[in-house]
């Protein structure tokens, strides 16, 4: 790592810190913001997420090597952490720090995109089921029952293994489309209670279309559990991706993801433990931050928690 890289990493940390302070200043005055930051882990969690996102976006600036580059396979494989390689090198002689940073793009990207697919599907299905009730609800919820009973990890492994060379976009879609069942149940329950309220009846009596009623009147009032489940969803997807990649069925190898970094380092775990422990720590840290944010959001978005 050269001086420029260190400065860039420091810059990213400062940026994340500024972001935390700024968010706290902006929203900390309102009641939800106060409830959010009352959690002792909320601010550090936002910092961790901010740092990893910044570093991932600025990957070429903070890394000294290309993530694929085998620097010197004969002499620099399994090199322990040093000033040149802050997190060491892996069994293929690649810089672990560079791979970690570029891997953040893939791992966080998959997490965010798959969560987006899952939450969108879940909201649409749950919203439709809860709003129209009757046979629509019954049919969709039976589908959800099947989805929830489906061994997800297993099904994904099966699809990826049997259809060789699944592109990354398809993998994201698959993970997303197998992850919306829980969300749709949450949304349905919320919609069922909101749709009976007076303002929904008022909107309907003014002649609003069902789509408009659902999108403009019902869903905004059911947003809290959706947001919380989205935050939890990203973490779940990251853990799932790690598991799939570990078995060699996720992100295909030369591309770095935190999951396949663990897999790449595993055979040399005894000689070069840093290769597998570092990406695992990164996953744990980010997922923990996401869980902490979800916890804090749950309280922040629930006005009944004010007195507690």
């Amino acid at each position, binding site marked *: 790592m050269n001086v420029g890289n260190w400065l860039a990493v420091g810059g990213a940390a400062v940026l994340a810190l500024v972001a935390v302070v700024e968010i706290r200043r902006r929203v900390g005055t309102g009641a939800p913001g106060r409830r959010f930051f009352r959690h002792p882990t909320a601010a550090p969690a936002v910092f961790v997420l901010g740092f990893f996102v910044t570093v991932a976006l600025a990957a070429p600036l903070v890394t000294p090597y290309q993530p694929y580059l085998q620097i010197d396979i004969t002499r620099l494989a399994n090199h322990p952490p040093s000033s040149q390689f802050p997190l060491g090198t892996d069994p293929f002689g690649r810089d672990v720090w560079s791979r970690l940073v570029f891997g953040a793009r893939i791992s966080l990207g998959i997490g965010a995109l798959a969560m987006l697919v899952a939450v969108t599907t879940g909201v649409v299905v749950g919203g439709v089921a809860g709003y129209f009730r009757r046979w629509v609800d019954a049919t969709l919820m039976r589908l959800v029952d*099947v989805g929830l009973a489906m061994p997800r990890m297993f099904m994904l*492994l*099966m699809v990826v*293994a049997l259809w060789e060379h699944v592109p990354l976009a398809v993998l994201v879609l698959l993970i997303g489309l197998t992850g919306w069942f829980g969300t749709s149940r949450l949304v349905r329950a919320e919609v069922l209670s909101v749709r009976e309220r007076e303002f929904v009846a008022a909107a309907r009596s003014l002649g609003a279309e069902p789509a408009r009623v659902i999108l403009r009147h019902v869903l905004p009032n059911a947003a809290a559990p959706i947001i919380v489940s989205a935050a939890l969803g990203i973490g779940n997807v990251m853990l799932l991706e*790690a598991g799939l990649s570990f078995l060699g069925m996720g992100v295909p190898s030369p591309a770095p993801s935190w999951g396949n970094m*663990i897999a790449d380092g595993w055979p040399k775990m005894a000689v070069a433990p840093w290769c597998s422990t570092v990406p695992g720590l990164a996953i*744990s*840290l980010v997922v923990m931050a996401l*869980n902490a944010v979800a916890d804090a959001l749950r309280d922040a978005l629930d006005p009944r928690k004010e007195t507690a």
Partner: protein
Amino acid sequence: MAAWLVRRLAASIAIVWAVVTLTFLIVHLAHGSPCGQPDGRPIAPEVCADLTRRFGLDRPLGVQYVKYLGALLRGDLGESLSLHRPVADALADTLPNTFMLALTALILDFTLGLALGVYQAARERRFSDIALGNAALFVNSMPTFWLGLVLLLVFGQRLGWFPVGGLRDLVLCPRVDSLPCAADFAWHLALPALTLGLVGAANTARYQRAALLDVVRQDFVRTARAKGLPERRVLLVHALRNALLPLITLFGLSFPFLLTGAVLVETVFAWPGMGLLAVNAILQRDYPIVTAAALVASVMVVLGNLLADALYGVADPRIRARAT
């Protein structure tokens, strides 16, 4: 209660049927055949044709499906393509190992999780509560298999306290039939069970703490305290009994967690259970084993939910009254 049970059972069977059908479709619509090995070893075309005919893979999909369902109803899971033995035998060999692992992990999960949750609730918002809470959140956020790798590295490889994999010592203990061999088995079981149990316990502790704190704010707890009962008795006897209900939900949910967790943990520890069998079968396109494993997995999930609902009724008279 009986009508409720019948209704739930019928729904459960329908769900399992749907999962089985889905698995069947995924497997049979996939590219490739059991003849084309991923490692690219050539197979003579006549051998391939013979194999395809023998396993009925040349018949139309609908015919294969009906045949498969019929066999399934008779309890026949078919024959493994790669192990050259009935799938039921392969499952019978591996399922006990998975159950052993899951059961040990489950016991660890709930005893540790319960103790931790109660302790944290008793020390609410003090330093030990916050420290333990964050530690539990961290463990709960780890990829389970990665925790396994770290434990393996530290306790298996570096310290050498535990074996680095496998079910038992194959030379000294080909069968678990004596006390030393049982101890050897437990010794091999320790790390994988600890891996699954720790992650589960972290989750359980979080729920248990929240549930107990909910109950502690209720009136009957205040009454118990007003009577002058010692705090230990208030918490452990009066409050805890009423805070155990969420544990039942967790118990039902832990079935799928233990099962999917087992797929990866069994791979890490070379534990010859159903997870490892399934992963190998997937890699070798061994369709009958893959579909059978998916069937077992979905049955476990449905069973977990059913058991949790039934236990709810047993534990809480209010729910029992509503169900009938």
